[in-house]
């Protein structure tokens, strides 16, 4: 369970959001919505503990994420705008690195996973030679090999076509059924049944008016 209490973020001299509170329960797929620049990425970065410039509290399974980082990070998978893929390594090596560093599933056929994300034939080329879309697919391959209950995905559908989105949505639903949490932002239309998807609206009027 992820619980946020009275989150307020001020960037330079602008209030991104104020007194934001919400709770996300296991088995939920949550989409953070809002216009560009409203602070979706900023919110994500504080939810995962990368940014500490905020007031308020964030709890994972009842304990503050700033206090018990290692416990939190064992259960967190984050996918940001930057892929986190090393261009001088191959997709295979990148995933192996991810496996060791994030204590992911070891007994899994990485070749199969890479074929799953549409990278069959690119497993052993250095990632620098791949297109931006293919590099994102390498990053997405992490979704198949991690054991984390909490997924925080910033624009996971970038450079993915309709049928690919459907595959990813299927994966999210399966993850939620097992008691996982998916937290995401996206500009694309999702085909997901709206009963499965919860939306949290960020910003809007409240955020726009407040200049300090």
């Amino acid at each position, binding site marked *: 369970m992820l619980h946020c209490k009275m989150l307020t973020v001020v960037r330079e001299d602008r209030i991104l959001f104020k007194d934001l509170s919400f709770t996300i329960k296991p088995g939920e797929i949550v989409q953070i919505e809002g216009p560009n620049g409203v602070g979706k990425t900023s919110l994500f970065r504080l939810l995962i503990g990368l940014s500490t410039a905020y007031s308020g509290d964030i709890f994972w399974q009842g304990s503050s994420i700033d206090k018990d980082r290692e416990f939190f990070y064992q259960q967190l998978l*984050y996918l940001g705008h930057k892929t986190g*893929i*090393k261009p001088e*390594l191959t997709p295979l090596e990148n995933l192996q690195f991810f496996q060791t560093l994030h204590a992911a599933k070891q007994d899994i056929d990485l070749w199969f996973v890479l074929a799953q994300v549409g990278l069959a034939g690119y497993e052993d080329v250095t990632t620098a030679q791949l297109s931006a879309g293919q590099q994102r697919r390498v990053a997405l391959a992490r979704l198949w090999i991690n054991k984390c209950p909490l997924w925080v995905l910033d624009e996971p559908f970038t450079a993915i076509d309709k049928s690919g989105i459907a595959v990813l949505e299927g994966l999210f639903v399966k993850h939620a059924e097992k008691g996982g949490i998916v937290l995401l932002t996206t500009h694309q239309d999702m085909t997901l049944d709206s009963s499965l998807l919860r939306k949290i609206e960020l910003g809007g009027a409240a955020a726009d008016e407040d200049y300090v």
Partner: protein
Amino acid sequence: MKTMFRALFSAFFQVVAKELQGAFRHGSDILNPVWFFIIVVTLFPLGIGTDPALLERIAPGIIWVAALLAALLSFERLFKDDFIDGSLEQLMLSPFPLAWLVSAKVFAHWLLTGLPLLLVSPLLATFLSLDIDTYIALFLTLLIGTPILSLFGAIGVALTVGLRKGGILLSLIMLPLSIPILIFSTMAIDAASYGQSYIGLLALLGAMLITAIILAPFAIAASLRVSVS
């Protein structure tokens, strides 16, 4: 407990291995700081004359200043690329302690930049007509001093990695911090060239190294948390 240690060490090993793998894939790039080091050292005899007595007198300073400059060139690589491609974020989100992982990165950095300096040091000793005792002192100070440089440098890079134009700023931060290493090392080499004992100075450097090994990783981790947020 045992499996935890094994996981810790395999993470450390993986970070080092991937750093080396990536660096070697760039081919001759990894030798550039060393070549820079050698070329800078050769400029001095060309600039001030080849009298062996004079060269031997100023050799410690030359070599250490050149080593500092070469190290400065290589620091950017430590976290900058990782910051740009996002793997630094992922490193920070790993369940392993960040201080531990960055020590692995610093160790890999030393293997790629400090160690080559040690390996080419005999060459420079001949260029600057050092005698064998002075050379041994030089080698020992480089052996102890270059890891300190890597650790200090990593703090500097961690502090500036988020800035768009961190390059020159990094030098401004780093050079004053490395003055003690420069002074103690050249003092030790000077003492050796007069046949005096320099154990005390080496011990001082060693103490700095141990302190740096223990404390710097935490400073690096904390700086990264500031830079990346």
